[in-house]
């Protein structure tokens, strides 16, 4: 099994000692098939046990190990070392405060996620004895792609609108709201619209499309946000032009 010496430059920050982050260079012997996360684990085990970062599944499912790798938001478990030449620069996800080293503060995202009610709100209360609520494959396909989101926050790190307007709900939260709005079993759209069609919602998006380019699960948040814009615009026309003045 081939091995090579890899140089990794990591942004370090210890809130108890440092006034600002700084880069620290490490050299670590890596196997050819390793990903950046393996290299970080090797550094922590052999060179510097103080290095802090989040990770869990090592298979692009948990969404914990997002970081900037050579300036690009990536899951470090999904970034193969063989794809990089020279010194690899690793930083915490941009657009989030740094808690320590590569660990970011995710509080803002989690609060926004909660605001959009990313769960099924049944149209009418169903008794459990009634059994399962079946869906056709076509009904499933309507939202399936958007249900693949793993909350890794790479889209927030790529989104310049979120960087410039931190009040923006952001790609993943609005995508998850859209995912449930598209679900035939759901009846919570009106509640979610209060958040996602507000001035902190989808209209902050100017369709840069970076969110979709960096998404590791091909969720395509940019598509979800544009669809929310179309639906919200139709709401406005229905409300202002139809005699009943009702939203659907």
């Amino acid at each position, binding site marked *: 099994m081939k091995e090579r010496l890899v140089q990794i430059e990591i942004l370090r*920050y210890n*809130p*108890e000692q*440092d006034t*600002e*982050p700084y880069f620290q260079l490490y050299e670590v012997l890596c196997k050819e098939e390793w990903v950046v996360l393996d290299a970080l684990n090797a550094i922590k085990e052999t060179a510097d046990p103080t290095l802090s970062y989040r990770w869990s599944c090592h298979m692009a499912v948990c969404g914990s190990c997002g970081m900037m790798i050579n*300036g*690009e938001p990536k899951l470090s478990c999904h970034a193969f070392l063989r794809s990089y030449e020279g010194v690899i620069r690793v930083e915490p996800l*941009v*657009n989030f*405060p*740094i*808690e320590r080293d590569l660990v970011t*503060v995710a509080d803002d995202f989690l609060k926004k996620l909660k605001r959009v009610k990313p769960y099924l709100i049944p149209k009418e209360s169903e008794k459990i004895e009634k059994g399962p609520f079946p869906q056709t*494959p*076509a009904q499933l*396909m*309507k939202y399936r792609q958007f249900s693949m989101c793993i909350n890794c926050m790479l889209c927030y790190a790529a989104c*310049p609108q979120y*960087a*410039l307007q931190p009040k923006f709900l952001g790609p993943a939260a609005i995508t998850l709201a859209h995912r449930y709005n598209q679900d035939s079993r759901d009846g919570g759209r009106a509640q979610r619209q209060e958040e996602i069609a507000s001035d902190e919602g989808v209209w902050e998006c*100017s*369709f*840069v*499309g*970076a969110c*979709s*380019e960096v998404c590791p699960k091909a969720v*395509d948040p*940019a*598509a979800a946000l*544009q*669809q929310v*814009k*179309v639906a919200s615009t139709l709401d406005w026309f229905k409300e202002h032009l139809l005699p009943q003045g009702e939203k659907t």
Partner: protein
Amino acid sequence: MSRRPFVRPVSKTGWYFQHPRYLRYMSREISCFFIGAFALLMVLTLERLGHGPAAYEAFLGALEGPWMAFFLFLIFIFAVHNASSWFNVTPKALPVQMGEEFLAGKYIVLAHYLVWALTTLGVLIFAGVI
């Protein structure tokens, strides 16, 4: 252990130089200025037309020259860039679901180009150019 999160500064003006994808986005946004300039030129042309044939001809005469030709060429390039960049992302905003499948995005994009070409043809016929 104390929490003291570090907030990295965000450049309000230079962020679009940080990645080619942001420059691509800005090129699409900036193209609007050129389209706006052309719309303004059209309004001015109509205004001159309102003052009679002599004023209109004089205005058209003033527009002749290499600088105006270059400016109109720039407007044309940016207008094509603006239209094509929006056409290319239309499948994201307007997906067409057919049963369990979605219509391939390329057909939605192609339909836009087709309507664009037919509209251009219609305008050229209406204007007596062809």
